[in-house]
């Protein structure tokens, strides 16, 4: 294979764009798992639910799926609140969050998948957007809008979440509950309420990530399971509870995948990506930017 600077540049761009998408998929896990210790295995199911909602509105009314996902994100927020409340009352309050809570979220994952199958059927769905088949070229470097637009919105979302967590009272309460819920309670803040709203935020980001997914590739109800490993890997690689870490971890995995696919063979990409994860954890168990 002839290795040119254009091939190298395209591999970098593709890796960064893919990483941006992975970041959007994983930022919710960074909150729920990284900060709240809630092992929400069902997170990809909410991503797929977001994809289907974006699909219905796009198919019926022609609205852009990403705009739709932002508009309906409050509904995902409310859904997240309800889900956390059930989880807290059923498991966390009784100290049974570890194994039974995990089983609860597995159940949610499969119920969501089956519900989508019953409502939408099993065929693959895609959306049509004005930019979906457009590629902007800068010389020999390609910028497919199908990936660029989700990347840009993902950056806004991830940076927005980070700024929210570090620059608002509630955001700092979320960071505090991750560190010491008892201390937070002693300061007069209800940690359960904080966790509820933080979890709801994580589900809202999943809904938006779902729109990115269906813009990028076809979606069918069972496809969420393919991303369970990836979203947790990004969260752990970046460092539990660190949004910047999640972003960095997503870029690392995206670039690893892109470079391996381009220069060594795509079948090696998962091995290289997860090899990097293992290597990072071996030398830095807290992740790239974890404490």
């Amino acid at each position, binding site marked *: 294979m002839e290795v040119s600077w254009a091939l190298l540049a395209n591999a970098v761009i*593709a890796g960064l764009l893919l990483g941006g998408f992975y970041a959007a998929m994983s930022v919710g896990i960074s909150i729920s798992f990284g900060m709240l210790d809630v092992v929400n295995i069902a997170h990809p199911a909410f991503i797929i639910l977001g994809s289907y909602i974006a699909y219905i509105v796009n198919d019926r009314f022609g609205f852009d799926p990403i705009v739709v996902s932002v508009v309906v994100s409050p509904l995902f927020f409310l859904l997240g609140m309800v889900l956390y409340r059930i989880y807290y009352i059923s498991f966390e309050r009784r100290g049974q969050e570890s194994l039974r809570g995990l089983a609860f979220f597995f159940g949610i994952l499969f119920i969501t998948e089956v519900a989508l*199958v019953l409502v939408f059927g099993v*065929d*693959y*769905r895609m959306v049509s957007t004005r930019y979906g088949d457009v590629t902007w070229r800068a010389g020999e470097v390609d910028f497919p809008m199908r990936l660029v637009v989700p990347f840009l919105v993902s950056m806004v979302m991830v940076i927005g979440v980070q700024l929210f967590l570090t620059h608002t009272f509630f955001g700092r309460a979320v960071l505090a509950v991750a560190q010491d819920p008892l201390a937070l309670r002693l300061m007069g803040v209800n940690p359960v309420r904080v966790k509820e709203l933080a979890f709801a935020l994580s589900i809202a980001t999943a809904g938006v990530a779902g729109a990115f997914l269906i813009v990028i590739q*076809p979606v*069918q109800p*069972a496809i969420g399971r393919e991303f369970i490993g990836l979203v947790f890997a990004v969260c752990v690689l970046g460092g539990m509870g660190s949004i910047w870490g999640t972003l960095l971890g997503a870029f690392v995995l995206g670039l690893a995948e892109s470079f391996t696919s381009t220069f060594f063979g795509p079948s090696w990409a998962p091995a290289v990506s997860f090899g990097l994860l293992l290597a990072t954890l071996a030398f830095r168990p807290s992740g790239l930017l974890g404490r």
Partner: protein
Amino acid sequence: MLVVLSTLRRMLGALFIGLALAGAALAQQPLKIGFGMSLTGPLAGNGKAALIAMEIWRDDVNAKGGILGRRVEFVYYDDQTSPATVPSIYTKLLDVDKVDLVVSGYGTNVIAPAMPIMMQRNLTFMTLFGLNVNSKFNYDRYFQIMPAGPRPAIGWSQGFFDAAMGMNPKPKTIALVGADAEYPAMALEGAREHAKKTGLKIVYDKTYPPNTVDYSPIVRAIQATNPEVVFVASYPPDSAGMVRAANEVGLKTRMFGGGLVGPQFAALKTQLGPLLNGIVNYEFYVPDLGGRFPFLEQFLSKYQARAAKEGVDPLGFYLPPYAYAMMQVLEQAITATKGLDQAKLAEYIHKNTFDTYVGKVAFAKNGEWAAPRVMMTQYHGITGNDVEQFKKPGRLTVLSPKEYKTGDLKAPYHENKK
């Protein structure tokens, strides 16, 4: 003595009456056919379409009084497109549900894991769209309804390579790419053999994980090797990914396509729309040949009415006719042999030609079609994403086989994407 004879006569009479009643009871028992089918998972779209076709066959047969006077019933379970579920499904069908016959689910990945059970129990096994599954098992009661021919890995891409080598000047290089899964592995094996036979130099030969999100690095890597021909063996989501990536990267090659699963059915035809133009790919039915398969038209109108209600592939050009034909073969074999003896069924199927909705079907010694009939076609003139355009002639040129050819290949791919 007279008393003994009289008693004996009464006992024999009772025995005959009992046997007759038992026979009548058996005749009233349904004929249970068991199978796994992909009703969820990546290939569920096709699996559900196949199930509808099989149910249409069942209803048609029962409307005529069943088979051997017995009403046909299906017992089936969702294999979730997962090979791991298949052995337990078929064990349950045979040992718990006590089905009379079994047929396969859809696809190489779920047919192969069922083979050891079939071989262990000496069952005749009609299978639905598995590529080259029997090449390692060599089971003499295996039958495949996909028309890939006696050497399926070769027959599958024969038309593609015939079209490629028909170009002037002949191409010299080829790139091979496919998913890390059973079907693409078989298809690529056949493509490698074709490349060797035709003297094409393989400049790229790699596979990718099926859950790949972005295919543009793969297509760029292919482009960097400047192949004149690109052969792809992929499943629906990766078919969509490769086609989109080829357009985004601006892939320049003389011929592109070959073994993409997905563009045969409505979901991807409509979703990809004009992006398909110029691609050469396999199909099993095109509307341009409608007159050649009159019974198929009847079946399709029944299928399309049901598919619309169930949210499944509304065209039904790919799997459904062959799923129906598979059951027709089984029906004719049972009727001709007047029973369910597995050895007799297998022998009959091997020795005879069957009239089905997809035409005459005969099997080779290894259970594959005696002659290949995979159509290689080129998409053209697709505009927008409307499904109705695909129901009419004019969007596909059949390049091979000769008896179905409707036009010539337009090359290069990148200049014929309209």
